[in-house]
């Protein structure tokens, strides 16, 4: 008999979300809904009428882990709308900033997922906050990688969290020769560390793939070989940076995208009738509680060719490097494999960077209302911003952020997982729920659904 269990809130990812799960007698998910319950902030609506300079700085505040993605995608959407080509050195600085942010984000995610994993060959789970070895050295390495990444982002981007340097038409500042050297020194130090860290993570993940079970709340939970599998396919625009409608051959097709309403994909009202007070830490939702994912979801559902898709590191590797594994552990593996590329990209850009080069376009058109879009391959996947700018003001603005693409896809990937490890499936997407929660969701009669829920 099908029962309903709910994990709310989910933990060890950015933002606020929950899992409403229909499970069979063995506790295996038959249908799972993973949804955002982070209050909608409505960035897209409040952007209307504001200047094209201001909106990217607001969009950046959608998320403090990947502000670089939103800032760059937003600026480049404006540039695409007005038809502004930026100078080469500005682009190089943006790529450096972008790669540095991806680097810090992967490392941060290591901290979030490691507690689900074991020291290879042992029954000891990894506690990155422990003072003991080997945990301490791993944590120290991760912190140094993040410090390096954030420092590089601050130099190239003006600020690590909410970069100040990018502007419509390029950048405010080029960097000094000294700053360039400093980035190079840091990148070289980082390169050694990320190779070590990648190898470490890959060992840990492979060890998990060989395990039969994991312990959750004192119970042994079997790990299906197909954990996290889905048939939704992937979407990516570039292995590293992104694409925009200014490109000669854009790698994203706006006509294949369609925005849909959450209830086309989420289940309706259910009553929780399975409860586990031992689920760490604090138990699951009380039996008798009603849930309604269709109404509660604070995310909308963008589709590509009419279906939800997976975006992120695995999507990038699958699209551009023929990576052919799938599921939870393949997602983890793909993410670790992106480590070195961040630093190689930075070093390559530094080689080409002329520190006395111009970083702002000579002419910045004010826009005639044409639609432009830009895709930024954020740490968590394709982040697409679409804009119409006229006379320097934003007429229309839309953000399709990675975790929004991933919500319904991941929900499908939950099928077949023991409910106690549904969160592991979720974490392999490195969710950034704040990112995914900036929509005002409108129903058929144009009533604002999400806003009603907040009230």
């Amino acid at each position, binding site marked *: 008999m099908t029962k309903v269990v709910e994990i709310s809130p989910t933990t060890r990812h950015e933002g606020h979300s929950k899992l409403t799960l229909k499970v069979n007698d063995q506790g295996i998910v038959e249908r799972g809904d993973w949804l955002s319950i982070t209050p909608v902030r409505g960035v897209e609506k409040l952007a209307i009428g504001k200047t094209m300079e201001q909106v990217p700085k607001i969009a950046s505040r959608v998320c403090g882990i990947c502000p670089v993605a939103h800032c760059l995608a937003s600026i480049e959407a404006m540039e695409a709308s007005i038809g502004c080509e930026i100078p080469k050195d500005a682009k190089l600085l943006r790529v450096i900033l972008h790669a540095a942010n991806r680097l810090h984000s992967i490392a941060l995610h290591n901290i979030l997922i490691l507690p689900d994993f074991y020291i290879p060959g042992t029954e000891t789970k990894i506690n990155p906050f422990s003072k003991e070895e080997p945990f301490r050295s791993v944590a120290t390495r991760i912190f140094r990688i993040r410090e390096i990444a954030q420092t590089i982002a*601050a130099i190239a981007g003006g600020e690590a969290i909410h970069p100040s340097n990018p502007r419509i038409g390029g950048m405010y500042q080029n960097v000094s020769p*000294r700053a360039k050297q400093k980035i190079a020194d840091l990148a070289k130090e980082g390169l050694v560390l990320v190779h070590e860290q990648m190898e470490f993570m890959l060992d840990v993940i492979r060890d998990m793939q060989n395990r039969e079970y994991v312990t959750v709340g004192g119970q042994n939970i079997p790990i299906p070989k197909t954990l996290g599998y889905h048939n939704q396919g992937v979407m990516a625009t570039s292995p590293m940076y992104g694409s925009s409608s200014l490109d000669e051959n854009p790698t994203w097709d706006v006509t294949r995208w369609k925005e849909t309403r959450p209830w086309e994909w989420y289940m309706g009202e259910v009553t929780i009738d399975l409860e586990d007070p031992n689920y760490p830490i604090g138990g699951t939702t009380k039996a008798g509680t009603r849930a309604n994912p269709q109404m509660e979801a604070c995310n909308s559902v963008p589709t590509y060719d009419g279906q939800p898709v997976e975006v992120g590191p695995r999507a990038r590797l699958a699209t551009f490097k023929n990576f052919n594994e799938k599921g939870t552990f393949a997602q983890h593996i793909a993410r670790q494999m992106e480590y070195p590329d961040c630093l190689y990209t930075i070093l390559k850009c530094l080689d080409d960077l002329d520190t006395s080069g111009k970083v702002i376009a000579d002419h910045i058109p004010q826009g005639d209302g044409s639609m432009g879009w830009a895709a930024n391959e954020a740490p968590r996947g394709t982040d697409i911003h679409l804009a119409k700018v006229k006379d320097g003001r934003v007429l229309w603005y839309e953000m399709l952020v990675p975790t929004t693409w991933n919500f319904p896809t991941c929900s499908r990937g939950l099928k077949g997982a023991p409910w106690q490890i549904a969160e592991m499936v979720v974490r392999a997407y490195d969710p950034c729920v704040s990112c995914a929660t900036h929509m005002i969701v409108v129903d058929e009669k144009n009533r604002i659904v999400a806003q009603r829920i907040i009230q």
Partner: protein
Amino acid sequence: MREMTADPYLGKYITCVSARSTDKEILKKAQDGGIATALMVYALEEGIIDGTIVAGEGDRPWEPRPIVAMSREDILKARGTKYSISPQIAWLKEATRSFGLDKVGVTGVCCQMQAVRKAQLYPINMRDVPGKVALTVGLFCMENFPYKSLQTIVEDHAAQSLGSVKKMEITKGKFWVHTERGNVSTVPLKATHKYEQPGCHVCLDYVSSLADISTGSVGSPDGWSTVFIRTKKGNEVWSKAVAAGMFETKPIEDVKPGLELLTKLAKEKIDKNRKTLEERRNFGVNKALRDPYA
């Protein structure tokens, strides 16, 4: 090391001397003893700093523009007092960003030293700044002027064109204007008061009490500076620089007019501005103007 002196008007300091740089090139265009310039050049050459914020040349004559100087040449460009507002702190964070500095030097007047210290202790959107400030050199400052004021004083009151001015100086009750061709005009300070930046009237610091090292002209003869060595950092840098032969020094006690005049002027500034602050409390009918020190 000497015991710390804590003076109610001159702030805390380890030593006070009269000094001037031994570098002839620096002295050529320095306002006084070339202390501000020589210290930053020395700190740069010794790796104590890797860049410093100075008041460089702006777009209009005698209009300062803050710059991040990373060479001796650029530091020397900031020699001479510009009696107009130079928003030095505007580059404080940026120095640690696109300039890529690890050890930032800052020069400026008393209020700008206060800004640096506040950012170090309460870094509000000032990430990385607290740990990267390496050396601060503060100037004495009685008051400052907006650029329009300076134009009016020099062009109307002193009847000189700003483009031909070589040096300006406030001393002995007058505003002095020296031109390249050797003319000297003076304006009685009384005539300049209405042009002062109003914000200076609540300033309770004359000798840059919060700097590592502070320097000014009052107290020492022409071509010499009065220097306070205040912090551990300041003491380290100063001792090394003196040992390296960068400065001629005299104990301030042996110099005329010395600390007596300096204390008198400091007291005048602070007493007068304290009174202004008090008046703000009863500025309205049953309401006050804000007191940032409250």
